[in-house]
């Protein structure tokens, strides 16, 4: 059960941290429609996180609920991908981050819909539909940015170059995942790689952007070795729970 707890937590943490990042856009988005769209995507992701935390808490059996898991763990205990904790940057950075993640999340949830863990499968079925929309939204925007003006092209390429080294982590597996893959509970991310590559390549081609040549990939999220950014995000997000221990909100 410890494995399943860890696995659910990984997905929950990625969804929450990305949802939180997107919520930082509210009031700052480049147009009103995007205030709504980014808010919508953030809501989907936070919803996914809540369902996954609830499942993780139940599996763990120590009475930790969604808020105990989201608000009362320090950065080292978070298992999200490094990609999703990267700061919003300009709109191009946010869109690239969303594209790299959603191009993975969409086939990931589809595959996880076949999980032998019925709760994970049910969460995945809902998340798959959401990820399809998130992917479409990011893809359409990246095409506009890449194939828009000289400035937007330059920004989109810079964003891609900046975040590309965080894409390798999407496909990593470790002992936790291997054991759960063998049981038919988890998805082997390596099997999703061809589809991810096709999706990303198609968008980049239409956006007239070039995938970076460098092969070095950052890693560490799954083992709690994060970038400096996560601590600040959590300091903000967890502030009330930390400042008033035991209070109910």
């Amino acid at each position, binding site marked *: 059960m410890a494995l399943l707890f860890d696995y659910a937590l990984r997905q929950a943490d990625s969804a929450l941290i990305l949802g939180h990042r997107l*919520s930082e856009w*509210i009031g*700052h988005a480049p147009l009103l429609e995007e205030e709504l769209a980014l808010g919508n995507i953030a809501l989907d992701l936070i919803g996914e*996180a*809540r369902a996954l935390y609830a499942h993780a808490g139940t599996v763990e059996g120590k009475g930790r609920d969604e808020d105990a898991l989201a608000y009362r763990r320090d950065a080292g205990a978070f298992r999200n991908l490094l990609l999703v904790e990267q700061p919003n940057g300009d709109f191009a950075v946010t869109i690239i981050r969303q594209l790299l993640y959603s191009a993975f999340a969409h086939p990931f949830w589809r595959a996880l819909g076949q999980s032998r863990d019925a709760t994970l499968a049910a969460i995945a079925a809902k998340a798959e539909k959401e990820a399809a929309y998130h992917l479409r939204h990011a893809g359409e925007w990246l095409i*506009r940015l890449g194939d828009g003006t000289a400035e937007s092209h330059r920004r989109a390429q810079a964003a891609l170059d900046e975040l590309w080294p965080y894409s390798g982590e999407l496909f990593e597996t470790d002992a936790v995942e291997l054991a759960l893959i063998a049981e038919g509970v988890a998805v082997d991310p390596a099997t999703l790689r061809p589809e991810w590559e096709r999706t990303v390549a198609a968008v980049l081609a239409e956006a007239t952007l070039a995938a970076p040549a460098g092969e070095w990939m950052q890693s560490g999220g799954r083992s709690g070795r994060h970038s400096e950014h996560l601590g600040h995000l959590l300091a903000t997000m967890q502030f*009330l729970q930390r400042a008033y221990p035991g209070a109910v909100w």
Partner: protein
Amino acid sequence: MYTQGLLHAKDDDRAAPEPADRLARFQARIDAEEKIEPNDWMPEAYRRTLVRMISQHAHSEIVGMLPEGNWLTRAPSLRRKAALLAKVQDEGGHGLYLYAAAETLGVSREELMEQLLLGKAKYSSIFNYPTLSWADIGAIGWLVDGAAIMNQIPLCRCSYGPYARAMIRICKEESFHQRQGFEIMLTLARGTSEQKAMAQDALDRWWWPSLMMFGPSDTQSQHSDASLRWKIKRFSNDELRQKFVDATVPQGRFLGLAFPDADLRYDEAAGHWRFGAIDWAEFRAVLAGNGPCNRQRLAQRSAADERGRWVRAAATAHAEKRRARAAE
């Protein structure tokens, strides 16, 4: 809501007189409770009053996203975080919806947005106050949305069709927000002593500005009675303010919180809660741009607009490229 009765009568002076028979037919339709639709003839002052009212309302929704957005990243639980996100998103949706309603009167969203960013357009004074604690999110839902609903429910019967229809949907969402805000206050009021103090402090700071949301007193209002005659509005500022106080005071007492008004008392004979004098100097100062956050709010909207310029330019350029390719 959010127009604060600031529909300056001086602007209602028409340059060219309109034919008396047309005006009479228009008034007859209003009196018969018919809805006026975008393509119908309407007096110029009616159109202008509505544009001002709807755009002030739309701007208020958009600026109103900021004080609440200030707590999106610090909401104390995932449930509260999701609910607040959904609420702020609803407000953006109301803004879009209302700009579209204003567009039916021949004014574009871009024009209206430009007026807002230039500081030429008004929005509700309430959003120029800061959100200093989580309890302020509760207080905004309970009091600010509560005041908004009081004003907006009669607007569902506004004589202008597109605005009235927009209001029906908006009111449903606002009343959900109001209950959500009250529930936040209730949780705090039933919580630790620190949480209760937080709730009290929020009520202390938001009560009077909420009363100011209804605009100047009827004796002071520059508002002509034309908008009542045209059934754009159905109640005066003071009538709506009194309704709000009557509805809200019992709720505050249920919360166990004290209103920051030594003169607040129940008038048995009239069946109304009587309240103390509103500090109209403060109201005027905030309207004049000197509230705690006026500059900050506009600066944030302007910065977002400025930072988003290249994104909008990219979208336009890309659309043009597509059109050109399709034409080839």
